[in-house]
């Protein structure tokens, strides 16, 4: 009996050979794509003929890619809340905003009271007032602060039913930008905080190194136009978020999240502590939202309150849903594609279309139509997203409410 059972895997295993597994393939794919992009923009495009340079500048600019990385970081964070734990969050922009402002406080001349300025491994312009920390420390601080805010928001509200929870998060997503706009002492109001310090690859070491005739900065601050190096650094932040997501997903906490997502009652019967597990999901998601906020503040080297609208929360949600809830890789693809589509493809396509056919159609204004249609059609025909997890797919294709009495809250 035992011998028979033992032999079964032996038969299967040798045939498979070297395999990276599901996660490995995606990982290699993303790393190769990212490096290709970096090498192209750093080494190939500057030495290419004008036509090629023009093409890349128009259709695949590095700034769009950096912004896409911000979106991807936040989407991976939201995926933990929505995709893993199944808690609908419609106010994720709050964490993005808070992260951005933490960067504004800790990496700029904004806090004038600190004079002379406090510098710690910073590559900002020296001898200015304000707090100037190394950006990695700011990442940690912003993440921790956002996680704290996430717990504070979550603690009183997480016991609510799903749609009420969605509404409360939405309320917070509306309140926090307004507070930021109105609390001028802490945030400089509508004028925002600018500029945010420039970052360097390392706080010490040689100023630059030369590889293949290309000068790569090491401890020298990255100039405002050095988006390629920043791309690599932001990609590292994203890689960290993905790593955390994947590792937690495999562990006890991740399985508890999935259990809650699929059936809260059953999960609590099995001994999953509901409040604590949900709060952790909130905190981890908010942490990544904070990282995204800092990266965004570095990317545009400023923070302004008018950027943080409900549209951002919804766009992030759409990225998670379109990519495939719960599957980190799918969410990343969704975020990348949507971010690129919004900021580059639509205006560029519009320009080419208009100049080719002599029309005057405002293509970016079709943005919300395409977006709305995409959401509706996805929900009608491919609810599980483009790259679903096998598990999510199974859950989403069966009706959840077997108890029909649950439908309808009752009219009176």
């Amino acid at each position, binding site marked *: 009996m035992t011998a028979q059972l033992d032999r079964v895997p032996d038969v299967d295993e040798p045939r498979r050979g070297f395999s990276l597994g599901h996660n490995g393939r995606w990982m290699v794919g993303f790393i190769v794509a990212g490096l290709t992009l970096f090498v192209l923009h750093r080494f190939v495009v500057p030495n290419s003929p004008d036509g090629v340079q023009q093409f890349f500048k128009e259709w695949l600019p590095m700034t769009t890619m950096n912004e896409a990385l911000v979106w991807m970081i936040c989407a991976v964070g939201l995926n933990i809340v*929505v995709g893993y734990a*199944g808690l*609908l969050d419609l106010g994720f922009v709050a964490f993005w905003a808070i992260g951005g402002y933490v960067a504004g406080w800790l990496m700029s001349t904004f806090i004038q009271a600190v004079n002379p300025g406090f510098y710690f491994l910073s590559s900002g312009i020296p001898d200015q007032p304000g707090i100037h920390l190394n950006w990695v420390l700011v990442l940690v601080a912003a993440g921790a602060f956002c996680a704290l805010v996430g717990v504070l928001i979550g603690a*009183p*509200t997480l016991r*609510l*039913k*799903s*749609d*009420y929870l*969605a*509404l*409360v998060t*939405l*309320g*917070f997503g*509306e*309140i926090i930008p*307004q*507070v930021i*706009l*109105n609390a001028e002492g802490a945030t400089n109001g509508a004028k925002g905080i600018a500029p945010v310090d420039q970052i360097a690859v390392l706080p010490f070491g040689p100023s630059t190194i030369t590889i293949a005739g290309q000068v790569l900065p090491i401890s020298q601050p990255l100039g405002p136009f050095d988006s390629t190096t920043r791309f690599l650094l932001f990609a590292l932040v994203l890689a960290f978020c993905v790593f955390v997501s994947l590792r937690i997903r495999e562990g006890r906490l991740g399985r508890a999240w999935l259990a809650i997502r699929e059936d809260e*009652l059953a999960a609590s019967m099995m001994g999953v502590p509901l409040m604590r597990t949900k709060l952790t999901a909130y905190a981890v998601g908010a942490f990544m939202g904070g990282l995204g906020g800092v990266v965004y503040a570095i990317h545009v080297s400023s923070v302004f309150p008018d950027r943080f609208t*409900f549209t951002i929360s*919804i766009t992030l*949600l*759409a990225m998670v*849903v379109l990519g495939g809830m719960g599957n980190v890789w799918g969410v990343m693809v969704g975020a990348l594609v949507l971010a690129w589509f919004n900021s580059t493809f639509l205006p560029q396509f519009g320009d080419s279309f208009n100049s080719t056919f002599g029309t005057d159609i405002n293509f970016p*204004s*079709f943005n*919300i*139509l395409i*977006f*709305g*249609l*995409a*959401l*509706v059609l*996805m*929900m*009608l025909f491919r*609810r599980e997203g483009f790259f679903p997890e096998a598990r999510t797919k199974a*859950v*989403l294709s069966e*009706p*959840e*409410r077997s*108890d*029909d*009495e*649950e*439908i*309808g*809250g*009752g*009219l*009176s």
Partner: protein
Amino acid sequence: MTITAVEAADSRKSPFAGFDFERVAGLGLLSVLAAGLIYNFFLNPTQFVQVTLTGVQQGAIYALIALGYTLVYGIIELINFAHGDLFMLATIFTTYLIAGAWLWQPAEAGAGGWLWLFGSLAVVMVLCSLINVAAEFLAYRKLRRAPKLAPLITAVGVSFIFQWVGQQLNGSGQKNWPTVVPATGGIEIGPVVLEWKTILVIAVTIPLLLLLNFVVQKTRQGRAMRATAQDQDAARLMGINVNRTISFTFAIGGAMAGAAGVLFLQSFGTTRYDLGFQLGLIAFTAAVLGGIGNLNGAVLGGFVIGVIQAYNDGLPFSPGQKWSQTAVFTILILLMVFKPEGILGKPTQEKV
């Protein structure tokens, strides 16, 4: 065994049952707010009454929108995110009918003007109910049995589509329009002015609410609605056409949003394509405040939120207009924490 189960159910405390921290905190907050209001009243009684009237006028519009949310939530448990944008479309349609964008310019507010006004009220109400029914038929109907996230995201998608239509019709900025109702002036009662637009809003809202109450409580269709809301399958077994009933619910919700749109344009004279999101959220807060699924609650909540917002915006001793959103959403959040079932709603317990 049965007794233990009942006891267990009873011991599950509602937030206001025992003498606990939440109760004290809630009451403390309420008394601080009440003290602020009383202080404001003595500071300037005329302004206080005037602001209250403005609040009632706003509240009537919120009530009409909130009804659409509460009807739909009551019957299929969907937060219809697109409802606020339907209201926005109604304001824009109205500009085509009575504000000069297409048909007619209100040169003088004579009898003809009023006739046009009520005519276009009817047209916009019908149009909006058709749009709402179409949205239900095309987008939400297939998702009725799906997990809750799916219809919710669909509603967000529909809301974006509506916004796009609004943007195409109205442009991306705010537009100002003439109104049939005189923008200023009204009946003077002592130092307080009861404005014409307030009168119009109340005069349209109250009959509509009475009519709606009659439809839901007294007619056959209304009984079908209530039955469907309680239990779809049982309703179907009783011979109720559930699909038609849900369509009907969306239709009257849409009609209310249409009426709110006409009244909004008459009282404020502005249109914006992203107006619906904000007002929709406020109206939804109103629906939740009153107890979602409860029609009278939605109306009450609408008036309460309208008055609170007016106090916040207009009183001398208050946070002021720039905190308007924050005030409303803080109420929403506090309500969710302390009394999620709303003022008139019944606490529900999760069924296994």
